[in-house]
């Protein structure tokens, strides 16, 4: 599914990723943990094609296709979805309109027919109910005036409608109380499947109690410095990142 090899990337003059390699097979959930400044958000932005990041070496591919050569919307149409740490507010565009426009843009890019409005509404109602989102909220401009928890729920809502193949969750637990964390995690877990991979980026182990990873990687100094099973996350929670900061 996702294959990253020896990835180097910089922002302005500063090199942030320094030879990162990572492979996530189809159907697996991998967590990337690391201290602040390790390059976690940079990894998510480089994979999704945000401007301002320059890849100087290495590669990233999805099912063998070079991701780095594609525009952000082309990557989205191929199934890459980033749940933002701080989802953006889109004034004047109702949430429902936004998601339907995005879904149809992706379908068009894949050569599929557009989804009809009634069919979309039915689907949206189901997904909103599952995430305990008040349907009226979907008529309001996307994320404008929403609380941190509501914004994260909207990310999962979009994810469940867009049905991506590679899900990247960037610090999805930040700003969530325990109840919201549970709802969001259930939404994510409902999307687990043999054809879908997930990259869960987090500073804290807490999220991984809810979204259980198959593998855990430690990102420090722009590289993966250690990999292991779920027990590695518990060890990091106990002992901190100090040891790995030195290793980097």
């Amino acid at each position, binding site marked *: 599914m996702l294959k990253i090899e020896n990835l180097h990337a910089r922002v302005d003059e500063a090199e942030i990723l320094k030879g990162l390699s990572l492979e996530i097979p189809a159907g697996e959930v991998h967590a990337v943990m690391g201290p602040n400044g390790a390059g976690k958000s940079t990894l998510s932005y480089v994979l999704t094609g945000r401007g301002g990041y320059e890849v100087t070496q290495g590669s990233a591919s999805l099912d063998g296709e070079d991701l780095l050569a594609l*525009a952000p919307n082309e990557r989205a*149409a191929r199934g890459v979805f980033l749940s*933002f740490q701080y*989802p953006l507010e*889109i004034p*004047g*565009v109702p949430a429902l309109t936004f998601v339907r426009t995005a879904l149809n*843009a992706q379908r068009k*890019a894949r050569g599929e027919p557009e989804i009809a409005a009634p069919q979309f509404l039915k689907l949206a109602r189901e997904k909103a109910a599952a995430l305990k989102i008040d349907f009226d909220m979907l008529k309001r401009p996307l994320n404008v005036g929403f609380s941190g928890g509501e914004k994260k729920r909207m990310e999962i809502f979009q994810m469940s409608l*867009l049905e991506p193949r590679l899900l990247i969750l960037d610090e999805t637990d930040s700003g969530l109380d325990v109840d919201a964390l549970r709802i969001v995690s259930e939404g994510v877990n409902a999307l687990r499947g043999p054809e879908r991979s997930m990259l869960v980026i987090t500073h804290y182990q807490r999220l991984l109690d809810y979204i259980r990873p198959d593998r855990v990687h430690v990102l420090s100094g722009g590289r993966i410095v250690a990999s292991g099973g779920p027990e590695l996350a518990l060890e990091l929670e106990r002992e901190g990142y100090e040891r790995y900061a030195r290793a980097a």
Partner: protein
Amino acid sequence: MSLAEAIRERDVSRLPSRRDEDWRWTDLRGLIRQAPEPSAPLAADRVGEGPFSSLAGRTLVVANGRGPASLQIEGEAVIAVDFVSGGDGGHAASLSLTVAPGATLILLESYRGEGGYLSHAALSIALGEGARVERVVLADASADAVEVSQAEVALSPGAAFAQTLLTNGARRQRIETRLSHPGGQAEARLDGVYLLAGKRHADLTSVVTHAATHGATSQLAKGVVRDQARAVFQGRIVVAEHADHTEARMGHHALILSDQAEVDAKPELEIYADDVACAHGNSIGVLDEEALFYMRQRGLPEGQARALLTEAFVGEVIDRIGHDGAREIARAWAAERLQA
């Protein structure tokens, strides 16, 4: 009015120029070196249909300055006034509307034309006590034209006047509104949208004078400029001495989508009364790159993301149009001009 006289008498020295403080960003004197010939009557087959003709109970056509001079409105009416211009001549028209106390008027006004004409329209709109008027102006002038529309609006106590100007500019264009506000629970809304491309120029100028207590004015203007277009917004709200309990809000917000486009804005509140609630906000910016990336990450191609953001930006003003049919026409007009 000196501009109408300048056109009629073919005297360029009487055109407003940059030396007039009020016209310094919309200089006509420097632009027009030679007064055009008077416009010939416009042939009937060149008039065609205006954008609002299907919505109005009655349509008045003013073709190359020729049309009715006055109108009385009683009861409820939906009236379209369609200013059509053609050719390279000069013409001026004036129209006076008197809205009886308690009457309701939907005034759907349009400007359109072909050629390098110089046109002036002077409107005077008087609202009796408790009268209600919604004025929607759609200006779709020729790129070669110089066009000025000036409206004098006089409210009576308890009257309500709501206006939305929509324009894509001209070679040089000014749409001006001067409103005298008597207070006494009268309400005014003066909105505007400009969407300018190429070398087009549009100037939205308004002056509202609150003369007595308990009046309200709300103003929201938004615009998008690209290429080498230039927009001017001048909004002045004057609250006279003793016009206490006046509520006035003014907002002007613009997006500049190219390095060579320009927006000049001058929002002014002149307050001589003590007990008022007045505020104004003005911003000029670019599309939010973070929001664009977010939208593209969800699958929207860049052009579509930009169009959606700019449509939403001006949509806030269009949503305030009360008349359903006019609002839909305004929305379609904006969407067509903002598509990538």
